[in-house]
């Protein structure tokens, strides 16, 4: 089966004097597979997904999206990307944002009329008439997911999709991922919520300081009798630079 995404020896740094933000990452994602990209803050997860979405250029290595360079607009035709902290043109309304993005996806008018109300209803934004500038973070996150699924993608990238969602929203996203997986859509999930990743992902890669520490199926990464969080903490701490202790003023407070 042809890989939806193939990442080989990917390296990236933002400026020549900076350390590598991503350092030799490789993985592949196949249709119907849910892949979890895990790591502490600054591990390079968002950089990897942005390179796959054609938003950043890779420094070294090779990345293909549906067999093409992600920088090629046509390669992104079947991509749905819900970014972390999504934002939109702030003077538009939710319906207009979806119509705008549906036009970018090349959907015809009939398709737009059918998909936009349904997508808005799924996101719980169908009654919303305010402009984006008046949206809360959670509402923007819902709209971010809505625009990502609008084109019925074959690859859905979700970058911290549930960070600002309430428990109901999280449940909806889990149900969405399950449904998409069942219909053959590949899902790349980038999340800090390890319990959620454990529930929906078949394969995971744990990153720290730009490198893959461990990768494999959930059963390979998480041994019997342990959970993903334990494995994650153990791996990340073993590869993290020594961290400062608690600030002295906090300790003083403890003494008093």
């Amino acid at each position, binding site marked *: 089966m042809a890989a939806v995404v193939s990442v080989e020896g990917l390296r990236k740094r933002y400026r020549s004097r900076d350390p590598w933000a991503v350092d030799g990452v490789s993985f592949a994602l196949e249709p119907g597979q849910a892949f979890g990209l895990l790591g502490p803050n600054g591990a390079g997860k968002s950089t990897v997904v*942005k390179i796959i*979405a*054609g*938003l*950043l*250029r890779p420094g070294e290595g090779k990345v293909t999206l549906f067999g093409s360079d992600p920088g090629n*607009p*046509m*390669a*992104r*035709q079947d*991509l749905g*990307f819900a*970014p972390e*902290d*999504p*934002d*939109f*043109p*702030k*003077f*538009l309304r939710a319906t*207009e944002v979806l119509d*705008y*993005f549906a*036009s*970018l*996806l*090349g959907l015809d008018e009939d398709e737009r009329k059918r998909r936009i109300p349904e997508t808005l209803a799924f996101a719980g934004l169908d009654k919303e008439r305010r*402009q984006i500038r008046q949206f809360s973070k959670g509402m923007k996150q819902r709209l*971010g997911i809505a*625009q990502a699924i609008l*084109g019925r993608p074959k690859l859905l990238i979700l970058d911290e999709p549930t960070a600002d969602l309430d428990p109901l929203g999280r449940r909806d996203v889990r149900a969405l991922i399950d449904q998409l997986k069942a219909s053959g859509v590949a899902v790349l999930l980038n999340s800090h919520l390890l319990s959620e990743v454990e529930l929906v992902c078949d394969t995971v890669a744990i990153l720290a300081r730009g490198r893959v520490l461990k990768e494999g199926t959930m059963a390979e990464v998480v041994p019997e009798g342990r959970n993903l969080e334990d494995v994650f903490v153990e791996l990340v701490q073993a590869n993290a630079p020594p961290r400062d202790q608690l600030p002295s003023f906090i300790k003083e407070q403890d003494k008093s």
Partner: protein
Amino acid sequence: MNGTVAVARYTLVELSRRRILLVFFIIGALGIALIGIGLKVFSSAFNNVVISGPTAPDPAKLQRAFELGFVNDLIGALGFFALLIAFGIGMTVIYHDLDSGAAISIFSKPVSRAAFTIGKVAAAVIAMIAIVGVLSIEARLMMLFFGTGGLGEALWIETVAQVANALTVMLLVMALSTWMNNIVAAIVAFVYNTVGGFVVLLHSQLQAGFLGDNQILKVGLNIVYWLVPHQLMSDARRQIALAQFDLFSSLDTSTPRGQRPSADQIVSSIPGASGAGDIIWWVFVVCLFAGLAYYAVRRRQV
């Protein structure tokens, strides 16, 4: 093509809802109305007070003098507001998408950066032409009510020239704001535009022979002249100056005829209508700035 049209369409929707442009438009519309009403009030008050003595000037000539002043002020007001609107659009149209993160969702769709830039530039140009067009129609209405000084045609051409000049500034601000903060971009563009205007003025003075015959100055100024955008101009300012000269020289009986400056002297100090060379240079500068905006958007990692 679909992508370009979608970007342009929704950029126009956004621009139509931006309060800053609405404020500039309202101030412009009020300013132009006030110039016309002020002229009417002033001219009728002046006629009532002055035109009674034995040396009173011809009321028709006075009226024409007011009209010429009115047209001159209108040209200035239109140019000023066209520039304000150019800054207002240029500072926001691409910058806000990049700065807010909206570009992340947009660029992950199957739209090329070229289509995005073309859509943005098209929307900005349409918005500016629409806003300045409405203001110039208002100016034309004012002229219908208060008189044109015989320069109605010239005002139209001058308006087109001012839109063209504002377009250059807008594209420069737009291109710069993809590299840097939009306020800094506006300041850089303002300084560049002011220096450019000064260089063009100096160049016209040099051509008219007012700056002597210094070869080094000539060569230096000619080089600098081709490094800055040339503001396009119609013949309106020269026509106004000539009409005012004719009018006031016929009123001036105290200065002996031989000591009065000639019409040629008056006209040569005012830049005339732009030639084909200036228009070709303007097209080149517009293409260059639009190309710069595209290059910046293409290079931009979001």
